[in-house]
């Protein structure tokens, strides 16, 4: 520990100006500001910004930090609910799960870094979202991820994988290894996720990571810096030149084309160290457990600039920071580089002067050495010093709040989605038999078993995982389970087998294809899909987090996608009763071939009163009746997985979805699961009814038989019935009586019986007979990409 005096507020003459020559408007434009924004900065300062100030404004006013193109839309989303404790605006949201426990959660993107360097990009995406969670004083208890890549099985005329497919496989492998590397090493279980492969992601993959934290209500910690004279302490990793300009240049602009473009962006990607972060987690939780901190904030995008100025803004105070006190990992860093570095695994806290020694001692115990670098002032100005020299002096509100907000100009694209997105290559002839179609769907990368991915992640560490990936439609965790954020709970607070064990169900989902076809309906469908996943484990939504991954919002057709998607998101949130607790907006996702599919990723957390009742997805008992629940209309093949395999272009719009009906079905299935009425429950998603049946067979290791008598069989079953898709459809199994009871509330048709080791369907000319092994082999198609 150093004997150096603690930082105090500096005496600076009222007319003092920071040293240095203003770099000027051209440099501002190179950093991502517009000429008008530069003029506005100059007006706010009363002079042109010097280098440190320009660097800080360019980051704080970037889309990534300011949401300047999305803020008005985000304000339309519902952000209140009975369980909501912390809504948008803090590091993450929080919901009340009962007995004094809160779950904090949030999803965030790390798309462009992952497109440039998939392993580190994905790893630091996980690291970043975990810091958001423990900055609130919560123990990170789970990670989920949503991944989108180009098609991995495109082949050329000779049957060889295309260059795009090879690159997509590289990105898939790197991202999965990166996510595993960080999460496994830090001891946070990865409990679920989703992955889609579509052409429009080929040059701009998506890596969204979601994390959950556990905290007792009174331990929830906010980021507002308060108390004039309090000391700002930086701890964790030392600061280097990595990730300079990550938020502005890399995250808030379209990716430069080609390999060279990606290569030149590599220095803007950070490098993660999960070991450093695991010490940070323990250190932060110990500091908070001992009540030593006034506030806590992580350093993420835009590093010290963003975290310090947001702490000052929320606390309505000023800050004096001395960059010469910041521990460096390399020599020769300029003050502006220290202020904007995105070096990972760093935290900032505010401490009363009498507690600084104790705080530093605990950071030393965990080898994440704390250093006092600044002080809270009443000036409402963010002043940056380099030793005795003033190198930046800005009003905090100008940095944080005064970025202009831009209206976007939505315009429905002429020619529909097909004009934006070329039809995918046909992989399946139009006249295949239902049996061949089923096998092709099971083997499609969007449907195939995710086991080759999730087998690379630890899903059981921390001893709360009741339903692992692949066992149920949503992950299920005991909450709090046998341990709280700071270790094992007393015996009388641990779960007992003879009493209900409370917990949460968690799901993340978001098909981009149906949003591309119809942004309003597709987005609402994604929310319903998450709620349906939760219903299968008996979970009722408490809140949701969303990551809006879109193209360049300055283009009218992207603005239209974004506007319609947010409208669909809001409507579906209101219907499902899941308020938005926060999230992330990732714009400018456009590669060399155009925009990505608009991809609103939805992560939902729901309350499970008793995890023992959570239903598995696989068939459990021979002789159980099987039913399709929920649909009151014929499902659609438009924008379906089958349409993609057949190489069909996107339709201009999807049929209207009755949200209220869908919600009634979801609630009825949830209640039946909670009551223990069902042996299994699985929502029907990509590939439709028959694909869902096959998934239930594979997961349960049991067959299914169904025969439609000749009178009703007619000309056989249509592709729309067998493979069409529609929200809020479920395959459930159980006793005939239980299914009849559910059928009194919502549409339900009994289709067949569990048993044997084959999937067998006979309906007039439609006949399918496949062994479990044949189903498994098709479903295992992703394994070869990880061999």
């Amino acid at each position, binding site marked *: 520990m150093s004997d150096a005096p603690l930082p105090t507020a500096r005496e600076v003459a009222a007319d003092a100006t920071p040293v240095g020559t203003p770099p000027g408007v051209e440099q501002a434009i190179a950093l991502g500001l517009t000429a008008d924004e530069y003029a506005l900065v100059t007006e706010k300062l009363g002079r042109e910004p010097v280098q440190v100030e320009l660097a800080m404004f360019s980051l704080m006013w970037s889309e990534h930090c300011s949401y300047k193109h999305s803020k008005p839309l985000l304000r339309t989303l519902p952000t209140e609910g009975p369980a909501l404790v912390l809504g948008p605006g803090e590091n993450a949201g929080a919901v009340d799960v009962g007995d004094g426990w809160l779950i904090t959660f949030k999803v965030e993107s790390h798309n462009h870094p992952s497109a440039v360097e998939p392993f580190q990009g994905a790893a630091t995406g996980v690291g970043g979202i975990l810091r958001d969670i423990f900055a609130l004083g919560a123990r990170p208890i789970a990670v989920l991820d949503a991944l989108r890549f180009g098609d991995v099985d495109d082949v050329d005329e000779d049957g060889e994988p295309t260059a795009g497919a090879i690159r997509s496989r590289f990105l898939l492998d790197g991202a999965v*290894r990166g996510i*595993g*590397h960080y999460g*496994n*090493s*830090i*001891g946070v279980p990865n409990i679920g996720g989703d992955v889609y492969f579509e052409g429009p992601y080929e040059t701009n993959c998506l890596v969204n990571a979601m994390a959950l934290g556990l905290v007792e209500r009174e331990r929830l910690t906010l980021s507002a810096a308060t108390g004039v004279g309090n000391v700002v302490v930086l701890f964790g990793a030392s600061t280097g030149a990595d990730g300079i300009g990550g938020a502005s240049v890399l995250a808030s602009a379209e990716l430069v084309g080609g390999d060279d473009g990606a290569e030149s962006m590599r220095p803007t990607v950070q490098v993660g*160290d*999960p*070991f*450093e972060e*695991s*010490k940070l987690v*323990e250190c932060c939780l110990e500091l908070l457990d001992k009540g030593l901190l006034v506030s806590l904030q992580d350093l993420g995008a835009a590093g010290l600039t963003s975290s310090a100025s947001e702490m000052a803004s929320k606390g309505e105070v000023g800050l004096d920071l001395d960059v010469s006190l910041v521990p460096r990992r390399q020599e020769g860093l300029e003050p502006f580089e220290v202020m904007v570095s995105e070096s990972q695994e760093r935290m900032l806290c505010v401490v009363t002067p009498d507690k600084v020694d104790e705080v530093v001692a605990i950071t030393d115990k*965990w*080898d994440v050495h704390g250093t006092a670098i600044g002080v809270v002032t009443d000036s409402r100005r963010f002043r940056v010093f380099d030793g005795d020299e003033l190198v930046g002096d800005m009003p905090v509100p100008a940095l944080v709040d005064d970025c202009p907000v831009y209206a976007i100009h939505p315009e429905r694209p002429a020619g529909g989605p097909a004009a934006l997105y070329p039809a995918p290559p046909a992989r399946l002839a139009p006249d295949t038999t239902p049996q061949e179609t089923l096998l092709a769907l099971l083997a499609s990368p969007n449907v195939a078993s995710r086991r080759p991915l*999730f*087998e*690379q*992640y*630890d*899903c*059981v*560490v*921390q*001893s*709360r*995982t*009741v339903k*692992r990936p692949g066992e149920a439609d949503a992950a299920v965790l*005991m909450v709090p389970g*046998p*341990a709280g954020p700071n*270790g*094992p709970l*007393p*015996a009388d607070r*641990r*779960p007992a*087998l003879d009493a209900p*064990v409370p917990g949460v169900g968690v799901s993340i989902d978001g098909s981009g294809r149906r949003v591309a076809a119809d942004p309003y309906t597709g987005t609402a469908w994604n929310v319903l899909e998450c709620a349906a996943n939760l219903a299968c484990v008996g979970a009722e939504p408490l809140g949701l987090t969303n990551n809006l991954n879109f193209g360049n919002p300055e283009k009218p057709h992207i603005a239209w996608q974004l506007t319609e998607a947010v409208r669909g998101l809001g409507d579906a949130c209101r219907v499902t009763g899941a308020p938005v607790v926060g999230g992330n907006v990732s714009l400018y996702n456009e590669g060399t071939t155009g925009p990505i599919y608009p991809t609103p990723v939805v992560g939902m957390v729901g309350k499970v009163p008793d*995890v*023992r009742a959570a239903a598995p997805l696989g068939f459990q008992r021979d002789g159980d009746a099987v039913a399709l629940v929920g649909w009151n209309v014929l499902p659609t093949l438009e924008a379906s997985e089958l349409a993609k395999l057949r190489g069909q272009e996107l339709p201009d719009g999807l049929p209207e979805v009755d949200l209220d009906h869908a919600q009634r079905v979801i609630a009825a299935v949830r209640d039946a699961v909670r009551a223990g009425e069902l042996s299994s429950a699985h929502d029907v998603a990509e590939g439709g009814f028959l694909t869902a049946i096959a998934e239930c067979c594979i997961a349960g290791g049991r067959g299914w038989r169904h025969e439609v008598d000749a009178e009703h069989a007619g000309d056989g079953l249509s592709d729309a019935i067998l493979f069409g898709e529609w929200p809020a459809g479920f395959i459930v199994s159980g006793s005939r009586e239980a299914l009849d009871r559910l059928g009194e509330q919502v549409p339900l048709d009994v289709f067949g019986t569990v048993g044997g080791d084959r999937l067998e369907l006979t309906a007039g000319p439609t006949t399918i007979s496949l062994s479990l092994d044949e189903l498994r082999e098709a479903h295992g198609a992703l394994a070869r990409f*990880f061999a």
Partner: protein
Amino acid sequence: MKVGVVQFPGTCDEIDAVLAAERAVGVGNAELLWHRDRDLKGVDAVVVPGGFSYGDYLRAGSIAALSPAMGAVAEFARAGGPVLGICNGFQVLCEAGLLPGTMLMNLSRRFTFRDVTLRVEAADTAWTAATSAGQELVIPAKHQTGRWYAPDDLLDEVRGNDQVVFTYAADDRPNGSSANVAGVCNAQRNVVGLMPHPEHATDPLTGSVDGLLLFRSPAEAARV
């Protein structure tokens, strides 16, 4: 019976190990031991848990093996105290010279998580006294550097002394280890290491409970 669980920076499964030990020996009878302390707090058995001690930089388990706590654990082991190394703990015990063999990266070169079936090869160690030879246990395995390796002469010695405690069931080879070994013991049979995680197989709510048998074993062995 009091159980101590060593905590290094970067350890991940220490709370899980405390919970598992408590399920076997009673709540309040397991506690953490800090890596910088040589004080083992008078415990009757020590668990070196899983995770990535000191980031597993240099080589998995190599830095932890030099920690003050491990110095005390080595003395405890030499005096006959029961020590169990799980996953990273197994790596640490090999690096500390308390167990034979060394750990290489999985043949797949990937981190692999899945339930594996273990066969008990020796039921006469401090940590298998509650099992029977030939018994099969379902326990999760999760590691990237778990391919236990011994050169032929060492392997012959380990087999000759019946120091192979667990093997993976015939069709279940998660990492490609020598002779399909999942766990070994020292010549005195009080120190046992294994790659799979018995602490994650102790609660019916989260899966198998076969791992409880290991945590019940030291008390059982002491009674015999």
